[in-house]
């Protein structure tokens, strides 16, 4: 994901901003390929994997539908 996407993303639970932690950047440096987004309010953590942030709330994160 592009770093500028951070301005658009919010914690799905309380709509507060997210802080980027442990960011790994891609080869040309303009994309975040891995890291964690942390809600500044509730502290919930959202992983970025293969360049895709997973902003599902904790109870929806399983890979297959219920």
């Amino acid at each position, binding site marked *: *994901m*592009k770093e500028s*996407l951070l*301005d*658009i*993303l*919010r*914690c*799905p639970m309380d*709509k507060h901003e997210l802080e980027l932690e442990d960011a790994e950047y891609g080869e040309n440096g303009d994309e975040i390929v891995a890291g964690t987004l942390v809600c500044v309010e509730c502290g919930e953590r959202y992983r970025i994997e*293969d*360049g*895709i*942030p*997973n*902003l*599902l*709330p904790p109870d*929806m994160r399983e*890979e*297959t*539908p*219920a």
Partner: protein
Amino acid sequence: MDLGERRGLETDVYQPAEDSQLLAEAACEGIDRDRDCERGRTTGRPDDRRLVLEVGTGSGYVASRVASETSARVIASDLNPHAVRQARRDGLEAVRADLVSAFADDVFDAVLFNPPYLPTEPDTEWDDWMERALSGGEDGRAVIDPFLEDVGRVLAPAGVVYLLVSSLTGVDGVVERAGREGFSAVALAEESFPFETLSILKLVR
């Protein structure tokens, strides 16, 4: 290759069909026209590109077309991990999220949605990702209604929604529900098929 064979090959992500094409065309045309109408307005964003979100992007077909045919920056989101991976492989900015819940207030100039809309018996639901991409619950509106409740929050002041609705779901009911959330609806395009008529509604406030 016919549709049945294509579906057989790709069972995890809804592949583009007539509904996708109808939404892509209406959205591309509308987004370009809106840009012309509002040229010169200040968005507060540094590059002043219009910002478009496609919810439930599936194969990414609609988002890709809007990204290539308009000047807008397009974000593609989906609940389905296979769908967001495919969207990213196709060069889209992908986010795994539930409807618009993970996005900030007042940011999008347009939100596009081809929702799961087929009315489905309760005991046949949510078995796999494809079922989830198609099924709209007993009345066909199980996903559309929560979307309508929250989408106004993420729209910029002049932002609009492009929503695909089928006659199988009932266009009047969706228009009425959108009205209760503060939207008026304009039908932009319509196409009839043997078992349903598809409409693109533009929702404005």
